[in-house]
């Protein structure tokens, strides 16, 4: 049976899934990057291979997410796809009726508008990451609670307080002020969820026609407080897919399944046991001052990028001509 691997490396987490011909998810991994995407991908490969068994062979690999190019160079990908398309592909197959996708991840939040199973419009947050997962994480850590606990507490809020949601710096100042004048933790985190949702709907979704059914996915979909606040604001129920955190990876795997590569570029699960690292330098030969990055596997340069003139790629024999 043919197997396809989808890898979604975002700013905070890496997600990997293996699907079969029938789109069944055979194995999945959801890991925090801890700022080290290469190691995380290697670790993910190891976990996947132990779940699938040694004999499993992969017929195609696709990468997505903000580190999609890095991931592709490392594992050998057959397809590199932006996360907007990857997310929508995963939804369109599962919920053909869906008209809107909310996706809130670590540092990105986006809205995708679907009509008759086709993406017609989309938007991503610009400039600032207020309202995304990393800020919620940070606030949970400040309160000394887990992110799951955070969502639970928010749902128990009786009188959510008003918190400035436009900017995380102001939001934090506001929250501390409310805490110091005696509001309960529930009401404060509930208020934070409300204001972040407000910010998301008024900035990212500004001018978009938000029709039901709406699918809500990305890591933040796990946060019951945010979900509840969205549902309250929009006066509609949201669909949360079973694999809400893995949708980008699933979409990538489905896309490469459609392509059906004749011979995959995948370097194999044994990559997890090799030593992988990158090194970067600034080339000073011309005014472009390219920031060049080299990827080393077992101390050998296997990929190189960032050099506009392709000089380093040529000299290490990665491209010819």
């Amino acid at each position: 049976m043919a197997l396809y691997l989808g890898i979604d490396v975002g700013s905070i987490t890496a997600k990997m899934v293996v699907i079969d011909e029938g789109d069944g998810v055979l194995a999945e991994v959801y890991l925090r990057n801890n700022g080290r995407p290469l190691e995380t991908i290697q670790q993910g490969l190891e976990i996947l291979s132990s779940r699938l068994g040694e004999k499993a062979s992969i017929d195609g690999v696709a990468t997505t997410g903000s580190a999609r190019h890095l991931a592709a160079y490392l594992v050998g990908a057959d397809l590199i796809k932006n996360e907007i398309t990857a997310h929508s592909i995963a939804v369109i197959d599962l919920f053909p009726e869906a008209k809107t996708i909310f996706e809130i991840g670590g540092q990105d939040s986006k809205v995708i508008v679907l009509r008759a199973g086709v993406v017609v419009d989309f938007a991503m947050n610009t400039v600032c990451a207020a309202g995304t997962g990393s800020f919620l994480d940070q606030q949970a850590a400040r309160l000394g609670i887990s992110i799951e606990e955070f969502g639970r507490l928010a749902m128990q809020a009786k009188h959510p307080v008003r918190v400035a949601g436009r900017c995380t710096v102001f939001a934090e100042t506001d929250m501390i002020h409310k805490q110091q004048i005696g509001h309960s933790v529930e009401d404060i985190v509930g208020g934070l969820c409300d204001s972040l949702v407000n910010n998301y709907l008024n900035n990212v979704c500004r001018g978009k026609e938000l029709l039901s059914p709406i699918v809500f996915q990305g890591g933040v979909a796990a946060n019951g407080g945010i979900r509840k606040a969205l549902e309250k604001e929009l006066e509609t129920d949201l669909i949360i897919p079973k694999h809400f955190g893995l949708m980008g990876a699933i979409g990538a795997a489905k896309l490469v399944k459609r392509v059906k590569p004749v011979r995959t570029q995948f370097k194999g699960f044994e990559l997890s046991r090799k030593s992988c690292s990158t090194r970067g330098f600034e080339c000073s030969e011309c005014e472009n001052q390219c920031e060049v990055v080299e990827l080393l596997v077992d101390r050998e340069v296997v990929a190189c990028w960032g050099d506009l003139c392709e000089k380093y790629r040529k000299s290490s024999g990665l491209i010819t001509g």
Partner: protein
Amino acid sequence: MEEKGRIGIPRALMFYRYFPLWKVFFEELGWRVIVSDGLGKRGKLVYFEDSCLPMKLLITHSMDLKEKVDHLFIPRLVSLHRSYIMCPKFRGAPDIVRLATEGTVSILDETIDLRMREHSTLRALLKTGKRLGVTEKDGKRAFQKAERFFLNFQKGWEDRINGLPLKQVFHLESPAPAKNEEKPFRVAFIGHPYNLFDTDVNKDILSFARSLGMRIITPDGLSEKEINAQVSEFSKEIYWSSGREIVGSLFHFLSGGVDGVVFLTSFKCGIDALLQEFIRRRLKLKGGVSIPLLVLSLDEHSGREGLTTRLEAFRDVIEQQKIRNPKHEIRNNPK
């Protein structure tokens, strides 16, 4: 002819439209024209007061030039249209540079105000010439030559932006490539010229667009009539000429002829902020359009990733639309 001296033209603002005209004019009069260098990847911006990115760039480029030239050419652009005005910052641009350079360089800052008289550009350049000791007759002759060159340059515009490396579009010695390869998509890029063509600001997004299979169409080729047709029915007049051109060309392209429209905006630009709201409301009134629209905001981030991700996704959207809506195909290839 003996070189009379050096005129510096900062690579900023309306350089990205009128440079060919200005350059030929000064060269015809025997002056050497020096253009500021690109910012390079490091992008060291000179900060001066709290201004928008295009103004910061004007100052940065002027600083780069001030020691290399005898005069800086920064015309006071009040209006480039019969009845509409420029953003007030253009009016103050020469003064802002004068302050930033602390008066260490001579600035040629004649006013161009097409509301006052039809030939204001000629007048301003003649006055500039006079300051440089040129007779009116020589000035007129140089202007005629410059204008001819400029019109010719504009004719080759679409081939230049689709065929040359974007950094070379304003290298006047590079000829317009004769024929560009066929591209699967026609995409209109709208915005202030200094956002569209300054590769330091837009991280060379147009080259990336080309690599995604897009043929780039810009508003430069549109006539006054085509713009008017789109903006005349508005309830409120847009009184900035650039804003009017942007909104007019955006709706012109959204009504057909292209597969998608991309609006490049400048973060912190007051005009762009208002235009976006204007466009949003207008689209709502129209009940949406079938041609996809993407608004890309340019800021001082050094990364290119945010722009390329959105543009890649936009390419996927227009591709899907084309598959679903093959009538676009017929319109683009009338057979």
